[in-house]
């Protein structure tokens, strides 16, 4: 157990509505990540954070924003959800240089 929780675990929303996903860690790690997993694409990085208020974009960041006001929480926001953002979203932490541990995931459906 890497001490990572994600909420909600499942969400159905409509196109055009804002959505916020939360990632919470209990171990005080500096680095946190948001990925999406889609068939045929594996895991793709959306955004990551290297400290409180320090974030950077990944390869599929368009349409997403993030915030990290506390070490333990990393929020992913879809300002105006689209059907192409239907996916499974995973949060991860980086305990050391060569390792990364993942949360249980959030399944998001945008109708």
């Amino acid at each position: 157990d890497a001490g990572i929780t994600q909420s909600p675990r499942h969400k159905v929303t409509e196109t055009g509505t804002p959505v916020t996903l939360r990632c919470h860690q209990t171990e005080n790690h500096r680095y946190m990540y948001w990925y999406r997993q889609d068939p045929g694409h594996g895991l793709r990085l959306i955004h990551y954070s290297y400290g409180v208020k320090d974030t950077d974009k990944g390869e599929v960041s368009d349409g997403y924003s993030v915030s990290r006001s506390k070490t333990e929480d990393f929020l992913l926001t879809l300002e105006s959800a689209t059907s192409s953002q239907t996916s499974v979203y995973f949060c991860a932490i980086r305990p050391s240089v060569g390792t990364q541990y993942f949360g249980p995931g959030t399944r998001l459906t945008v109708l």
Partner: protein
Amino acid sequence: DQQVKQNSPSLSVQEGRISILNCDYTNSMFDYFLWYKKYPAEGPTFLISISSIKDKNEDGRFTVFLNKSAKHLSLHIVPSQPGDSAVYFCAARTEYTGNQFYFGTGTSLTVIP
């Protein structure tokens, strides 16, 4: 442009035999390589990693081999067990891209009892 590639979408192996999962990469600056196992409806679980300064790392039934000249790594599972049936992802990182990790598309392993 996919920097980490897993060219075999699926693999079936008999229980007790060896499973070999393969991964190729293009970026010679990668310094760590990782393997994950993923069951349906769960997050990926870290299995084993290897630094680019090594060519082999073992952990129980799992061994990862790195061939830097060929830009190729493989995961060997010996002996394979039915509980190993899952999707396996390889991943790589380099400090030169801000600590980002790049993932392959995964290989679905089925171990037949």
